[in-house]
């Protein structure tokens, strides 16, 4: 079957539209339950975070809150956005730039008792960087 020039362009345009629609639909379907909501400790305090759903928690590591469990691998600390605090537990080696008083993004799940269990910790990459959410708040103050 040969595609005639006149029809060929039509076929190609239709295919392109299908591909575009397919990509958007596929993306929407994927985003439905896989987009992690970015929350702050204030959101959690206000009950806006659903427990047991993948979320990212952003804020500053509270000074003096970092503690280590007897197994030597699990750490506990509190994340603050200056208005509220959330306790976080994480098992593993913390990234290079992670320390008390600096910005952090924790990926994980919130448990029903309000403890945030992190699977992954991301620390800021640049001395001047802070999560945009915190920068917004700092700017409005």
């Amino acid at each position: 079957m040969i595609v005639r020039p006149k029809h060929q362009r039509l076929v190609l345009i239709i295919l392109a539209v299908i591909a575009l629609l397919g990509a958007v639909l596929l993306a929407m379907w994927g985003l439905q339950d896989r987009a992690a909501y970015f929350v702050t400790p204030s959101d959690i305090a206000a009950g806006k975070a659903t427990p047991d759903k993948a979320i990212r928690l952003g804020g500053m590591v509270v000074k003096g809150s970092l503690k280590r469990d007897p197994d030597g691998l699990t750490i506990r600390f509190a994340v603050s956005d200056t208005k509220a605090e959330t306790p976080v537990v994480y098992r593993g080696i913390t990234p290079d730039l992670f320390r008390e008083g600096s910005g952090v993004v924790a990926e994980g799940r919130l448990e029903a008792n309000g403890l945030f269990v992190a699977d992954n910790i991301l620390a800021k990459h640049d001395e001047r960087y802070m999560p945009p959410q915190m920068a917004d708040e700092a700017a409005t103050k």
Partner: protein
Amino acid sequence: MIAEAGLAALWLAAALAALQLALACGLGGEQGRQISTVRAVAIGQGLLTAIAFAALIALFLRSDMSVLLVAENSHSQKPWIYKFAGAWGNHEGSMLLWVTVLAIAGAVVALFERRLDDRTLGASLGAQAALALGFFAFLLIASNPFERLNPAPLDGRGLNPLLQDPGLAFHPPTLYLGYVGLSVAFSIAVGGLIRREVSPAIARAMRPWVLAAWIMLTLGITAGSYWAYYELGWGGWWFWDPVENASLMPWLAATALLHSVNVLAARGGLRAWTMMLALIAFSMSMVGTFLVRSGILTSVHAFAVDPTRGSFILALLTLYIGGALTLLAVRISHVKEGAPFEIVSREGGLVLNNLLLSVILGVVFVGTLYPLAAEAVSGEKLSVGPPYFNSVASPIALTLGALLLIGPQLRWRRDSAPLLPRLAPGLLAAVVALVATIILWPSIDILPRLGLALGAGLVPASVMPLFGRSLRRTPFAVWGMVLAHLGVAVAILGMASDTAFTREKLAAARPGETVSVGPWLIEFRQVMPAAGPNWTALQAELRASRGSGVTVLKPQSRFFPDPPTTTNEAAIDTSWNGQLYAVLGERDDQGRWQLRLWWKPFVTLIWLGGILIALGGALALVGRLFRERQQRRRLEEAFE
């Protein structure tokens, strides 16, 4: 003085870009003379921009702390290679590098382009000047790299130690060469559309630039992936971080363009589609720059928030992408019909390749920009991560890989010969590998299993186009294609193997204790201090043994005084069948050290695959340029 000279060169270059645009717009009557003026102006613009960039490098090498940018990002005690690389390890410097590549690319087109007619070349150089002008304005108005600091500080603030790495000296320039190399494809497409001259000649002029940019992007992404792998100490090689996506999106578009531009150059088909891809590929480069440079991302890579710069780049982006797509919409009815082909043909396969790449591009684009759009519309803070990208993009990527078993085996235009003998080696290898994985490793996930089968099938399938050819007379371009496709197979095998077989161990150990991971027994010997040019470190000694093989790993926890920062330096031992990866964590009050160990079978194939893909591209590029030169020479001889 150097700073002022650099700034003056930048202003002059901007003025020349404006002149170039004006000349290109007024290109009429005396074509012959006009085009040579435009060429000369473009070359002058490239030279002046190069001088400005050289001035910035000189300032960094001399540690001239009276320049704000140097004081903020450098330090006199840094090794010279990082002073050098520090010139583009920051916002202003990297934007200057961007413009430099853009202007030099324009100059190279002006110097060497002989395939386009004068008017199309003039329009293309005009488009290139319009692009450069916007970014010159951005530098001069919103991010002057040569700003002075008075009084000058005694020393600088230093460069983020994470960025003090040989890989990083090489990484941004490579990516930028790729990003900005695509600008030429964009400008030639704009020139062709303005002149209503969308022909195979346009595709042939575009092709070396697309190839070169694509090679650089491939290398840049491969290097960036390896840098993140060993420097961040997370053991992963792709994080779907928006900054990584910013380089992946232009690569996906360029890969599609690379394939479709061949259809247009060789067969005269897919005209409007190729023009659209050329516009989109560089648009993706600009979107990537916007994402990285505007600081609007919640990302580990994001730089300081600066709304002025963000809106400036956004305005440029809207102007260029909007303008180019409008031009395409207006001129699409003037684009001639392409040559016809059957559905089962090389062209048909390439159309499918392009559609799948476009779908992946769409999925990555939506996933990367959705959080920004959601926040702008509803104020909701979202972040999209690996679960989305892996589950949505990987199946499409595997489908594209499966197409690669078939596509290169097809003939141009129509393919009525029996297909099965040509497809058999690849399909057979894939099926055998699939059965083997089910028997050997019944419990691995479906995606890595399919990846292993596909990779195994692609090895013979990518070599098949050489079958039945005289190897000595096979063009370089075909060798390049075979090598690049083989690289895809190798990379897929590496990714699947790493995903399926990685073993991880997290331990708190005292010196003298032994830990095991995968086939390795690791004896934790001791922790000793160590020192480098501008850092001190604690260094662990790990004696790893497997069978009779013994190796020593020395992961470090490094401390940099300027600015005070600690980083983890992973220790990696590479053997033929994988990498052993060790990270040293902190010491607790009972004298135990945190150790994180990975055994990653065949993980190196990922980057080896990337390098093979780029090499394949290089082979094709050299082959094409060589052949064109020969043909031109033969033509000239025929005239004489």
